[in-house]
Structure formats: C-alpha cells, structure tokens
C-alpha cells in the first residue's frame, strides 16, 4: 500500500509536468533540464523515507544502500538540471551562481545545490572522516535539511515547469517525510548511546 501511494506521489507530478503546454515552445535540452529538476525533487521524497527506514520490504542494509544510490542520483540530477539550463541561457545561470539573479528562487536553488553537494560529500567520506556517528549524522542531516527547504522554496516560486497542484503536494510530502524522519531518528540528540 505504501509502495502504491509512493509510486503515485512520484509519478503523478512527472506526468502532470509532461502535459504542460509550455513544452511545445521549449528546446529538448531545456525540457531535459526541467525534468531533471522534478526528478531531483522526487528523490528528495525518497531520501528521508529511506533514511528513516519507513519503506516495507527493505531491510535496514538495503535501505541504506538505496539511500546512497538515490543520493548519487540526486547529484547527477542537479548537474543535468544546472548544465541544461546553462546551455539554454548561460547568462541567467551565471547570474544565479553569483547570487545576482533577477529571480529570487535562483538563490534558494543554488544554496540547495551546494548543501546537497556537501551532504553527499559527507556521505561518501563518512569512513574517512572518523567523526563520531551521531555528530556525522547531525551534520549530514543539517545539510540535507538546507537542501530540502531550499529546493521546496525554489520549486514553489517557479512558474512554468511543474503543474501547481501536484508540485504543492509533492513539496508538502517531502517536508512531512523529512520531519517524521528527523523525529524518528532524533538526530539532534548527539549524546553517545548509553
């Protein structure tokens, strides 16, 4: 049941965006960049669900493996998103990366991108960093929360890529999943386990 709902929550926003009339007036590379952004948002729903081990049928180990794969997929999605936009309109992306864009949502997106890169780096480097586990987890989760909030604000302020109702629903689900996982794992408690 959870899997059916989850599949619907991920597929419906993508299908709704695929029916957008604006697609007819966009180049393939611009469309690809837009959909990479939507898929990135879908991955942001999967990530807290995997981290919190909410999904039935997945063992803790496979949850963690899928969390890692989805994290790497998210980085690839961000790179395609930004790269595709760069090809479509270089000056707009340069403005965004330098935080001098005309559009306020660009700043949120760029902040979310950098904190996603940092969160992913912490994930990849976990063994080598030799941080205490709960300290590492708080850092990784903190960066992930910046990514999630930044991405949600970014997406909500944008007009023309996603359909509004499905976008709002997906964003609310991302925030709910994140909040429930934070509460379940009690990431703020960094005392050593007794």
């Amino acid at each position, binding site marked *: 049941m959870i899997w059916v709902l989850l599949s619907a929550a991920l597929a419906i926003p993508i299908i709704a965006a695929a029916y957008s009339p604006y697609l007819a007036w966009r180049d393939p590379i611009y469309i690809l960049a837009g959909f990479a952004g939507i898929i990135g948002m879908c991955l942001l729903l999967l990530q807290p669900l995997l981290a919190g081990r909410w999904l039935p049928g997945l063992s803790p180990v496979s949850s963690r493996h899928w969390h890692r794969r989805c994290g790497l997929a998210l980085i690839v999605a961000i790179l395609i998103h930004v790269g595709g936009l760069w090809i479509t309109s270089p*000056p707009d992306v340069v403005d965004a990366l330098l935080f001098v864009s005309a559009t306020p949502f660009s700043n949120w997106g760029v902040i979310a991108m950098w904190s996603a890169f940092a969160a992913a780096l912490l994930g990849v480097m976990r063994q080598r960093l030799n941080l205490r586990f709960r300290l590492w987890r708080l850092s990784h989760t903190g960066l992930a929360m910046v990514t999630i909030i930044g991405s949600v604000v970014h997406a909500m302020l944008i*007009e*023309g890529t996603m359909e509004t109702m499905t976008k709002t629903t997906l964003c609310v689900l991302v925030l709910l999943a994140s909040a429930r996982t934070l509460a379940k794992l009690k990431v703020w408690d960094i005392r050593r386990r007794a």
Partner: protein
Amino acid sequence: MADALLSRRSLITQAAAVVATGASGLLLPARASGLAPTPSMRGGSNNYRPGAPIVNQIGGGGFWMTGTVRRAGDGAPLPGQRIQIWAHTTEGHERDPHSHGATLTDAKGEFRLEMPQIVPAFGQPHGHLAYDSGEFETVFLRPVMSSADDLTLAAHFVLQPL
C-alpha cells in the same frame, strides 16, 4: 530649573532626535533634477543581441509590448528613440535572433510592437527591453507579467542624457 528652555534631559533627547533623523536618511538635499532616470534591472541584459533590426512586428504577432520613453529631469517625451525588445515566446528562445526586434517611439514618446505570445521561461513570464543608442545612458529592463495569460506587457524608460 524646571522652566529652562534647555534642560539636560531635553538637550539629550533633541540631540538623539537629530542624530536619528540624519542616520535614517530623512534629511535629503533638495533636488532640482525632478524625474529620476530608470535604473537597469537585474538580468535585463541577458541574451541581449546588440543591433536588433527595426521591424513592423516580431514573428507572427498576437502579443503587444508597449511603453514610454521620457527624459530624466523634466520628463519630456522622447520621440524617435530606438527600443530593442526580445523574449522567450511561442516562436523561439531568448537567444534566437528571430526573437529580437526593435521599434521607434512616436511623437508622444510612446512605443508599441507586436510580437509572439511570451511564455514563462526560467521560472517567470518576462520580457527584455533595451535602450542602447548612445545619446542617453544605456538602460536594460526585464519586466515580469502578472499572469502568463496576459496579452500585453508594458515597460517605461526615463533616460539620463550623457
């Protein structure tokens, strides 16, 4: 002492008030210049192609870009000024040469150019306009439509003589 015009308390209060007024920028020098020039907007010059040709219409039309051009200071309308216009429309991306065109202001300093429907691009339905003819300071504008369904968009220039 209670009747004194300047008690220590009133002196301190008044001094503080003067400092606060100055610091908050409420004291402005009187300006004789009148109408202030329009500053360029952020991102206004993105995908600009200098020297867009003067055209009767960009592409198939159906959408109107309108506006006025006036002189800074006295606000006099400026006829015969060349305004360049480009946008992401139903017929092309901003960077495409055929998405660009220019028009001249009439005797009242007004311009209107028919162009294809503007569609949302990079998150907002918006257009680009430039004054870049050398007689006045260059200005780039990037107005945003209040709704993507709008059939017209206006932008107003107040130009600073060089």
